[in-house]
């Protein structure tokens, strides 16, 4: 029996055809753009079917997922927390001591988020949140993470040059403003309480909540002004 070198198969016409078939049968490596998205849809629907057949997933769960994250849970949840903190100093103190418990006072259910922490902006101190290892984000407080939060651009640079990145994102901070970056590297999730905008003394809590933007609760923007 002759010794086969590792390269033997690659030089053999039959094996080459076999490799080609192998790639074809196992899905397409080189898809991109719309073809990739269509290829992912085909694959996802097969996985969904298998999980339903095996009793792991129910057919309604996918619809519920869309309903939950596209309509029910989003930045308006966190906005209620921030607006209450703006009008109620005692609540703000409880929030800083035990955010996970305090948010239930405004009807927020942290769900599977077991440890929420707030970081509170003040004159001269600005907080911003990220996750450099993946895309950890307080889903049950802010909803789905935006695409830029999950991007290599944000994840790589916000810890190294936050003042520059924030300026690129439209938030100019003076050089003497201290920037505190919070990299969510474990299961604690962070919510920024931005500074209450000037000229809002006449607004009630509900009106204030309308000014609280998602970006301001991550720390890459400011609340809206009335």
């Amino acid at each position, binding site marked *: 029996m002759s010794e086969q070198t590792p390269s033997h198969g690659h030089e053999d016409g039959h094996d080459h055809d076999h490799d080609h078939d192998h790639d074809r049968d196992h899905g397409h490596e080189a898809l991109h753009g719309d073809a990739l998205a269509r290829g992912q849809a085909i694959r996802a*629907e*097969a*996985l969904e079917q298998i999980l339903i057949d*095996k009793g792991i997933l129910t057919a309604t769960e996918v619809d519920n997922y869309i309903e939950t994250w596209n309509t029910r849970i989003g930045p308006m949840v966190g906005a209620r927390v921030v607006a209450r903190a703006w009008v109620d100093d005692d609540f703000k103190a409880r929030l800083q001591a035990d955010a996970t418990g305090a948010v239930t006072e405004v009807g927020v259910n942290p769900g599977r988020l077991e440890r929420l922490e707030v970081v509170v902006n003040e004159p001269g101190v600005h907080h911003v949140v990220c996750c450099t290892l993946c895309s950890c984000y307080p889903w049950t407080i802010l909803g789905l993470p935006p695409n830029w939060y999950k991007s290599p651009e944000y994840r790589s640079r916000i810890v190294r040059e936050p003042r520059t990145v924030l300026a*690129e994102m439209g938030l100019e901070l003076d050089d003497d403003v201290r920037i505190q970056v919070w990299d969510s590297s474990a299961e604690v999730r962070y919510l920024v309480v931005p500074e209450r905008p000037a000229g809002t003394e006449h607004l009630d809590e509900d009106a204030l909540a309308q000014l609280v933007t998602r970006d301001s609760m991550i720390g890459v923007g400011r609340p809206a002004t009335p």
Partner: protein
Amino acid sequence: MEGIHDMGGVEGYGRPTHVPNEEVNVGTRWEAISGAALFALLRSGVTNIDAHRHRIERLDPTRYLPLTYWGRWLAAVESAMVEQGVADVSEIEATIHAKGHDPADSAAPPRMHPVDGLESRSNQPGFLRDVDHQPRFAVGDLVTTLRHPPQPGHHRLPRYCRGRSGAIVRSYPAFTLPDTVAHGRGEHPTYLYAVAFAATELWGPEADPAQTCHLDLFETYLEPARTEPHVRADP
């Protein structure tokens, strides 16, 4: 794992594409399948969130960047199903056929860095655990991080903070340890701390003197400070 996912401080990426406060939606049904399937796999104990994160880290780095966030989730879901014995690749392809598609038109199966010891999680859900010992550190303590990964495989000690000294600014309860949970090696509840590092400690003397980075680090990643850090406790 020393993978492409560990992006903190890596240079060469440009400006984030950012539209202020743009609404975020699950845009397509396949993305929702990826999300709902992951939650179902977690709920049923087929996998756990730490193993899921490790699967994303284990994606071939040449595939990691071109895939979207949901694309990575889909790959990790399929990988969990195959590795945990829910389905094999031939069953997935047969199902693609049965639904009227040519497998050649489907996305490729995930190409993964191999791993040993991934098991389903059969313990109680959640992350917080009561432990019968006291934390080693307290707020205000100065600590130095390990210079190397705490172990092969999954962990949560980013490269950019290794071997650096900082101050503990928040002290947290014990959490299940991702390093072992991801590999089916038990929960090993471990105290967690928010540690503040001066940007000059992380990036050098030219860094922004008014910048601090905080990371949430497990007690096993920390030692009493070997060097005077550039930052003291600043809760």
